[in-house]
């Protein structure tokens, strides 16, 4: 600790604090322009000048100067004010000062400081900058005439995003923040640079000229795309969500978002939103009233009682999912409910339940930066959960986390300093983990307490056959590589495994999760800070869906069983809430046939999705911006979602609909509010005990888990390569999440359609070029897709994202970890 005096106030701060930090902690405001608490100190703008008694004679930049013992600091006097004024005058010298047409106005540091310091005249004169403005980029408008050279954009893109899109180019007065060779900006489009830019040099193009900053209501809520659970501030005006607003104090991520969170909000007020219920009359869906539609749903469900099933999306709130479950069990006496095609949550509902005694990750997000060795299964963790990707970047670059990846392809994470990627044969993950477990047992590297845990003997027997040599053959890696990884993992003081889950990753199922849980338990990682396993649930409320029990009961069917039951006629009525199985479940033809076959299909959605188009009744529902509730994100963080706008059209929340049906079918009274349901959740769901709406506050609460580790050996199923065929891997594209982001303009502007990615060598052999077309064919079907070339895929392996309704890859993919396909160049 260091003691110093700032403006006659005694301040005590940590040793590594700067003068600026010290002043801030004492509530003394020092103006800044180029400083950002998330970034390394830069000291470029000189706005934060202060006077230090011991360094008299010159003014000291407070944001870069460490606080030292006994320092006497003055944050404002005539000389300091004059110096700051001069800084502003110099900045304004070549600045266009076109505030009336600049979207930053009202939220611009330069404007605010100019006002605060009363810089109304400039004694200096010069020509204005005349840089060409980038109007071409669909998401980020760059007007370098307004740039104040704070370098924050370049620093955040490099330090946190690890992309490195910008750098200063030219020298002296010609210096400019630019891209490589001053070309167009083609990056990840996370928008971090836009959020930290203190002026209007970097602006959101989709929001351009839409509203003034001060005229919008700022509503704090949680992102509704992936399971990371980033906190979000929505900019709302006239009942419309117009943009997302950056708040550096929000969440563990300090307000950082990814493309979907920052630029995918347009689905809320999309023209395509359903506004009234639809009922099938013959071949078409016609508009109907709510009473008529709900009455029809109720009567058909009654008719089909005993042969009803439900599929629900984990995008709904906990309260809605809880009511859905109650409606199905208490109202319909039905146990056939499921979500995410079954496999996308198997890691939690099966593996964690068996191996840990409950269905949640033992670890939390904060562990990522606290660990010593981070073992990520698939580089895709970055694509599925980009903001957790930033956490990984920071862990590796700032906390010295050792990053190891086991993946079927390379990825962005592979390029982090010190990262090692073991690229294995597609579909061999379970073998790989069993082999690691075997090595640790045979080399006696296991935790001392492991042998006493239940199932140890079985595990030893179970993995006995997974010798490094056999593992090497199955995974295509060297036996020495596997042994080295096992030793490194066992030796690390803290080790954390990340496993992304999702509809695009059928291989990331209960078996794989069990295999890596065995490994973590064996090395004593469970329940320790910075160690363990973190399952990355795909959707915003994947963890919540598991907690609320959206899984088939003992006599119920799972998602695959439900689809099969529809096809066989065993299921007579299917209730789909928010899921889009036609696009997101494997084997599209089979799903479509099943949905056409089922006697009665209700779909509840925001849009007339490919699935809703097949329904007998379509009920329009509200988006996350139109309701209150809670989401439980990766690492079990229960967070509040806040209503920002009135429901679009006559749409109702899923809550209202389930509530009505529940009351009608059980004769019980309606729940009065989400809060009332949450209170019941707190009473009946393990882990939620003691939580109250008020306690959740603005940051949410990480709900506790009770862990009882146990070994459950698993066998790997090897995917036998088929000669002459390619191994097709499905997954997530960086800018998309599920099928919802298709309705967000931002993600569609940068990634508008499905594609299939080839390694350069394969492409060369087949004579394929970027953006050419190929036909991909499997036993299930065939689809024409655009070609994308990359350097990350090994020979014989293809990758395709699953989000798209048009030319969807699930026409071809069958839900196995690897789908074997033929590829032909299409004309």
């Amino acid at each position, binding site marked *: 600790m260091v003691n110093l005096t700032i403006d006659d106030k005694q301040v005590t701060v940590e040793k590594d604090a700067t003068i600026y930090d010290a002043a801030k902690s004492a509530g003394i405001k020092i103006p800044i322009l180029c400083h950002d608490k998330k970034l390394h100190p830069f000291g470029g703008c000189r706005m934060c000048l202060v006077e230090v008694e011991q360094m008299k004679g010159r003014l000291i930049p407070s944001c870069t100067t460490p606080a030292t013992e006994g320092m006497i600091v003055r944050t404002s006097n005539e000389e300091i004010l004059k110096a700051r004024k001069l800084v502003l005058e110099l900045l304004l010298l070549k600045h266009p000062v076109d*505030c*009336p*047409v600049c979207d930053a*106005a009202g939220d611009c540091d330069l404007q605010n400081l100019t006002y605060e310091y009363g810089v109304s005249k400039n004694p200096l004169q010069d020509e204005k900058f005349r840089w060409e*403005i980038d*109007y071409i980029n669909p998401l980020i408008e760059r007007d370098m005439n307004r740039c104040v050279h704070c370098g924050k954009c370049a620093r955040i893109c490099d330090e946190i995003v690890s992309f490195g899109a910008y750098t200063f180019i030219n020298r002296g007065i010609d210096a400019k923040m630019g891209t490589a060779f001053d070309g167009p900006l083609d990056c990840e489009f996370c928008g971090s640079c836009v959020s930290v830019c203190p002026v209007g040099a970097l602006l959101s193009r989709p929001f*351009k*000229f*839409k*509203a*003034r900053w*001060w*005229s919008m209501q700022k509503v704090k809520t949680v992102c509704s795309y992936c399971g990371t659970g980033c906190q979000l501030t929505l900019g709302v005006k006239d009942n419309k969500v117009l943009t997302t607003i950056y708040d550096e104090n929000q969440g563990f991520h300090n307000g950082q978002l990814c493309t979907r969170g920052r630029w995918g909000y347009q689905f809320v007020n999309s023209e395509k939103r359903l506004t009234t219920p639809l009922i099938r009359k013959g071949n078409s869906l016609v508009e109907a009233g709510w009473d008529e539609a709900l009455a029809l749903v109720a009567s058909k469900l009654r008719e089909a009682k005993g042969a009803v099933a439900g599929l629900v999306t984990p995008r709904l709130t906990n309260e809605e999912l809880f009511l859905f479950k109650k409606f199905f069990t208490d109202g319909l006496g039905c146990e056939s409910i499921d979500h995410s095609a079954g496999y996308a949550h198997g890691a939690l509902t099966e593996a964690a339940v068996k191996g840990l005694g409950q269905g949640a990750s033992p670890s939390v997000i904060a562990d990522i930066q606290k660990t010593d060795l981070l073992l990520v299964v698939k580089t895709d963790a970055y694509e599925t959960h980009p903001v957790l990707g930033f956490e990984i970047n920071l862990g590796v670059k700032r906390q010295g986390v050792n990053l190891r990846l086991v993946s079927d392809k390379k990825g962005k994470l592979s390029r982090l300093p010190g990262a090692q990627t073991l690229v294995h044969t597609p579909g061999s993950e379970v073998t790989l983990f069993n082999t690691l477990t075997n090595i640790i047992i045979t080399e006696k590297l296991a935790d001392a307490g492991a042998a006493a845990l239940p199932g140890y003997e079985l595990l030893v027997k179970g993995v006995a056959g997974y010798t490094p040599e056999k593992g090497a053959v199955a995974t295509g890696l060297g036996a020495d590589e596997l042994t080295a990884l096992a030793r490194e993992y066992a030796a690390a003081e803290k080790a954390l495994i990340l496993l992304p889950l999702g509809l695009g990753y059928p291989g990331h199922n209960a078996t794989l999760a069990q295999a890596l849980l065995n490994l973590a338990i064996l090395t004593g990682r469970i329940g320790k800070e910075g160690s363990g396993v973190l399952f990355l649930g795909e959707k915003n409320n994947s963890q919540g869906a598991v907690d609320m029990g959206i899984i088939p009961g003992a006599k119920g069917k799972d998602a695959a069983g439900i689809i099969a039951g529809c096809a066989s006629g065993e299921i007579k009525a299917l209730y789909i809430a928010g899921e889009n199985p036609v696009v997101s479940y494997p084997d599209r033809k089979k799903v479509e046939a099943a949905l056409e076959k089922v006697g009665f299909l209700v779909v509840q959605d925001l849009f007339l999705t490919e699935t809703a188009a097949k329904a007998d009744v379509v009920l329009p529902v509200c988006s996350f911006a139109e309701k209150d509730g809670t989401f439980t994100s990766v690492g079990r963080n229960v967070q509040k979602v806040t209503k920002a706008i009135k429901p679009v059209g006559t749409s109702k929340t899923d809550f209202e609909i389930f509530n009505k049906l529940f009351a009608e079918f059980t004769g019980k009274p309606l729940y009065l509010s989400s809060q009332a349901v949450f209170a019941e959740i707190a009473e009946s769901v393990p882990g939620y005990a003691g939580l109250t709406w008020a306690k959740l506050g603005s940051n949410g609460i990480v709900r506790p888990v009770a862990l009882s580790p146990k070994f459950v050996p698993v066998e790997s199923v090897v995917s036998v390569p088929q000669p002459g065929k390619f191994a097709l891997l499905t997954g997530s594209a960086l800018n998309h999440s599920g099928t919802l982001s298709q309705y967000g303009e931002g993600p569609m502007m940068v990634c508008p359609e499905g594609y299939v990615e080839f390694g350069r060598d394969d492409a060369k052999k087949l004579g394929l070029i970027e953006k050419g077309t190929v036909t991909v064919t499997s036993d299930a079907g065939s689809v024409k897709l655009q070609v994308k070339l990359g350097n990350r895929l090994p020979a014989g392996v293809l990758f395709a994202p699953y989000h798209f309704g048009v030319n969807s890859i699930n026409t071809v993919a069958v839900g196995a970890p690897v789908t074997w396909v033929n590829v032909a160049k299409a004309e």
Partner: protein
Amino acid sequence: MLNVASPLINGLKITLQHLFKKPVTLQYPTERPVVGPRFRGLHALNRFHDRSKCVACYLCPTVCPAKCITVEAAEDPITHEKYASRYDIDILRCIFCGYCVEACPVDAVKMTENFELANYKREDFAYTQEMLTDKK
């Protein structure tokens, strides 16, 4: 003692004086008032080439105490300039305070000498950008 007569006489004197003065009332509409140059009558928008000068900075709707100005901004597809695709004043709610004129950073909105705003229908008091913009 209280003098009852003198205030009465004083009052009558004033009344009589006024009988011989020029009346202040105008015989409107045959007689017209002389309107001062800083009079705050109906608004008008200055013109800049083929549209109004308003750059849709939203300062006037922000400052307007009656909240009667509606501005919507748009981007010129060629020059990328910001302009007002909509500029409406609901003159029935306007209190003619002139703050909008004062707030405008580009001198787009002004107030004219036109005070004759009577009309038959409520809708006719909704002034659009087209009605407000100076003719070419």
